[in-house]
């Protein structure tokens, strides 16, 4: 067992342990580098592509370290000049934020009721909510299509906001319920003794305390709404109302054979950037939310 830079140890026992320790260190460092490479390489490749000129993109063998004259902003400029890309961004943000706020407003009271109020049939309701988190959206798509058509909601933000609210309610109920279960009951009891009714107690005492849990849930709900594809593909057909995932997936060239790799790469970068930022700032909350009952791929 030979490893780098071993301090001289007076006792043989300690030395043996140290050797084992540092060879483990080396392996671990390699493993960490592999994890980082695995997670980042595809995104970095797309990022690099988005800044390369068309000649550099289609160079064989590939250009990994482009010269300054092989770099360009043009693909980004094109996105915003030739496409209503700001519209796409706005649509995604508007639909995701609205549905997130709605699912918090609707799901949190339900979570409280399921955590505290000993409803008859609460176990059945909880079981159903758990199962529903497993349903792929394709199961809902035909029925929702009929509703959207019957209600004349095609090309209306509501056609996305309502389903997105619904798909995030189970998550909200599960995360918020486990949060309420952790809160000491005394708090609510003493509020009741002080003469608060349930509604006042909820809004004036509990709500301020739930803000961190609401943020956690909200981030997850926002991610799921921003990323949704099949409903957005089906219910919205007007170009200026499309959301990012659909609009980018449909970016095409002038002909079938001319695929605009550069703009597609740039669009991918712009569309994923908000989510990368969310992860960078809220990693802890995302992990916490995902593991505290909100489990979804």
């Amino acid at each position, binding site marked *: 067992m030979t490893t780098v830079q071993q301090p001289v140890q007076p006792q043989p026992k300690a030395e043996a342990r140290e050797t084992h320790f540092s060879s483990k260190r080396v392996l671990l460092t390699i493993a960490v580098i592999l994890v980082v490479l695995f997670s980042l390489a595809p995104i970095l490749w797309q990022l690099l592509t988005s800044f390369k000129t068309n000649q550099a993109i289609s160079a064989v063998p590939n250009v990994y370290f482009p010269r300054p004259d092989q770099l360009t902003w043009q693909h980004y400029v094109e996105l915003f000049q030739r496409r209503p890309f700001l519209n796409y961004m706005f649509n995604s943000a508007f639909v995701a934020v609205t549905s997130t706020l709605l699912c918090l407003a609707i799901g949190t009271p339900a979570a409280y009721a399921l955590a505290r109020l000993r409803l008859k049939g609460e176990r059945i309701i909880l079981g159903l909510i758990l199962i529903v988190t497993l349903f792929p959206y394709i199961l809902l798509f035909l029925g929702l299509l009929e509703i959207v058509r019957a209600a004349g909601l095609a090309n209306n933000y509501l056609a996305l906001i309502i389903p997105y609210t619904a798909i995030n309610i189970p998550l909200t109920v599960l995360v918020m319920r486990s949060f309420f279960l952790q809160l000491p009951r005394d708090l609510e009891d003493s509020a009741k003794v002080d003469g608060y009714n*349930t509604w006042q107690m909820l809004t004036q005492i509990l709500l301020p305390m739930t803000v961190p849990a609401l943020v956690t849930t909200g981030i997850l709900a926002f991610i799921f709404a921003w990323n949704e594809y099949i409903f957005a593909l089906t219910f919205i057909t007007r170009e200026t109302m499309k959301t990012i995932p659909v609009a980018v997936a449909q970016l095409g060239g002038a002909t079938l054979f001319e695929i605009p790799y550069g703009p597609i790469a740039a669009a991918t970068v712009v569309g994923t950037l908000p989510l990368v930022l969310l992860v960078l700032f809220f990693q802890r909350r*995302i992990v916490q939310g995902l593991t505290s009952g909100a489990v979804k791929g």
Partner: protein
Amino acid sequence: MADTIRAREQRTGWILIAPALLVLALVYAYPILRSFWLSLFTQNLGTGLEPVFSGLDNYARMFQDGRFWQSIFNTSVFTFSAIILELILGMGIALVLDQSIRGRGLVRTIAIIPWALPTALIALTWAWIFNDQFGVVNDLLLRLGLIDVGINWLGNPTLAMVSAIVADVWKTTSFVAILLLAGLQSISQDLYEAHSIDGATPWQSFRQITLPLLMPQIVIALLFRFAQSFGIFDLIQVMTGGGPGGATEVVSLYVYSSIMRYLDFGYGAALVVVTFLVLILVVAIAALVISRLRTSAGEKL
């Protein structure tokens, strides 16, 4: 007195929960029940898009529909390959992230990025990576001298499936890793210390302590991954469109084109029903396994 308080509590409870149940009924219960009902009708271009009651005809037709069986086969290959790879890789990543390493927070943050990104965009990223002319996979293989001519990954039936599986594994392994990591962190360090004092190697500790104690998280992660892969749509639709020649057409893509392209609503509904029933069956089996695990863990304590 106590009775009225209890009654009032019940009433408040139902008022609080009613909006959520209403929305769930509209977006989940109605569409699924409606699919069951529609699946008993023939409603397509042949009937002038009017529903005509036809009993179980749609199901009989499905039984003889080679394209349906092909899609079930494709979905199964995709699902089982993806979730097995995700479990192995996710376990590896979770074990690494569980160690005390410098910059652990940053590494964890990086590791969950793939999970958070939109699948449709990831599909484009991977289609570009596997591009036959300018793709980086071919470029690396050529540089290493492993191939002489670029491989047409997405144009070959088997390789297109492999590419889609790779993309899905990349995207969702971090989800599995997060769940397993939470399980790892709840295992007491004392157990490992006692075990290694008894002379156990790290591999033995992994097999005899980590795996059994992690079983509930493993089953839950597998269950969620199964459900999501079984209904996979965006990744395949954007990356291969189900091609080449239907080689990657999964069930949800078939459902979608039955309804949106062929306007065959009754048949599409029957496909939805079958997908739903398969899913429920697997959930029931998984629930049984989890409750078994819980009771056997309870007996040991």
